[in-house]
């Protein structure tokens, strides 16, 4: 992954697939006194890579994710998902979105929550090759994959916070979207549950190799999960740099205790401090 700087690279990348964020800027507030949230942010995520974005509060990392998800508009710059515009990617259901809160529909059972993407915008079908699989069998398989095999008939309120967030991840992945966008999905959970969900996400990623953009304020979480950690500065959010994580996959829980892990963590931390000073 590289942070790109020219339109030529952008076109090449769009042809090859992946997620391309080019020269993105976003301002809030009145036009005579705007507050800049993002300034000329360019990030390239190759297909099948896991990229984490870290930055202090006010670095615009959630705003960045919302723009990529089509939930907010940029003032300048562009986003391309596998060569498609964000609009087309949403239309074709190429985006899986996991918000900070599970955002489950409380009146639906767990299984029906996971099946929701089949029911809306149903003109666009799932992307996997097994067209013969029924919705129920897909949902069952997905629930198994997130460790909730026997919870399909329960209601969200009957589940713990960690289990609810697993359902949210299952809902985002059921359609095998091209990109998975995760906005601090574990931030509301306790430390042990966070660790467990981190390991489960790693296992899912090893299985499915989705292209993932993961926003977090936890450096350890970013280093544990990602292939590349992109560091944003505080307001306005600018890309300070990126750190390639040289840890082999699959990654176990104990990887966090290794020197290599701490080295990467320290490198990211130093970069964040630098951005803070700026």
């Amino acid at each position, binding site marked *: 992954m590289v942070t790109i700087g020219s339109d030529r690279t952008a076109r090449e990348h769009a042809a090859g697939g992946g997620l391309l964020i080019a020269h993105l800027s976003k301002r809030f507030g009145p036009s005579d006194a705007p507050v800049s949230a993002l300034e000329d942010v360019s990030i390239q995520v190759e297909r099948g890579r896991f990229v984490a974005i870290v930055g202090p509060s006010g670095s615009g990392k959630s705003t960045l994710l919302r723009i990529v998800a089509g939930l907010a508009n940029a003032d300048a710059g562009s986003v391309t998902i596998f060569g498609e515009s964000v609009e087309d990617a949403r239309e074709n259901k190429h985006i899986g*979105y996991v*918000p900070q809160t599970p955002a489950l*529909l409380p*009146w639906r059972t767990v299984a029906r929550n996971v099946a929701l*993407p089949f029911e*809306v*915008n149903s003109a666009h079908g799932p992307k996997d090759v097994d067209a013969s699989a029924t919705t129920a069998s897909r949902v069952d398989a997905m629930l198994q994959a997130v460790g909730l095999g026997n919870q399909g008939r329960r*209601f969200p309120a009957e589940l713990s916070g960690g289990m609810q967030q697993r359902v949210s991840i299952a809902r985002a992945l059921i359609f095998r979207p091209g990109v998975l966008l995760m906005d601090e999905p574990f931030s509301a959970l306790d430390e042990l549950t966070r660790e467990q969900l981190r390991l489960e996400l790693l296992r899912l990623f090893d299985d499915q190799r989705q292209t993932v953009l993961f926003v977090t304020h936890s450096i350890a979480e970013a280093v544990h999960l990602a292939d590349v950690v992109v560091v944003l500065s505080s307001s306005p959010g600018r890309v300070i740099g990126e750190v390639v994580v040289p840890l082999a996959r699959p990654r176990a829980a104990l990887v966090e205790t290794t020197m290599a892990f701490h080295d990467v963590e320290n490198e990211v931390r130093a970069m964040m401090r630098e951005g803070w000073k700026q």
Partner: protein
Amino acid sequence: MTRTGRFSLARYLPAFVAFLIAAAIWQVVAEHTQSVIPTLGSIASALSANSHELIVDGLDTLQESLVGLAAGFAVAFAAAVAMSQVRILERALMPLAVVVNVTPLVALAPGLAVAFGFGYMPKYIFTAIIVFFPFLVNAGIGLRSVEPEALNVMATLRASRLEVLWRLRLPSSLPFLFAAARVCLPLSIVGAVVAEFTASGNSPGLGVLVLTSAQQSQIGIEFAAIFCLALMGVVYTAVVAVAEHRLLRWHVSARSPRN
């Protein structure tokens, strides 16, 4: 006795005792003021002696309240859906609805009788008007009470407005609609009775029966009719409670507290 049986007894016994005490107080007071308040025995004998009339009039009042309720709910819900979809409609219509609400609606009843005669129509209209505002406000709040992140998930799937309305906004509004129903169903009986008072003449209904029997000092029949109206309210409340229990199993208000 089973465990469940003991639980039920513990739950219902206080209410049962409270009813007994209230009945005893009523009886003592009635014994001393029989020209104003009938004894429980005379209400019971009036109920059995006038059962046919009470049932016929009761069905009339029931019909007025149900038709008014259905009409009021339909119009209020349609208006709330329209307002949730078109913001300018909300800004335009909500102040108007508030003005209607703060107007003492009881004052409209005689005018409706003059305009629509002594048939069922003015009763339907009055009942519909009286339940309209609580339904409108609750449906409006309910349709807007959607978790923003759930809207975002729908947006990333490119859900249409209709899909968001049907799969997200309508179910989200259910707890609010039930809260409105708890108020509006008994209120619809009030609406029907008030409309009957103002347009009584020879028209049927328990409200008319209450009015005429009071004028003729037949307080046994008067209170028998009031008893039937109260019974109707109890049935309405029970129906709402059962429907709420079945449809809102997922909602926090339907769950028993845990430790």
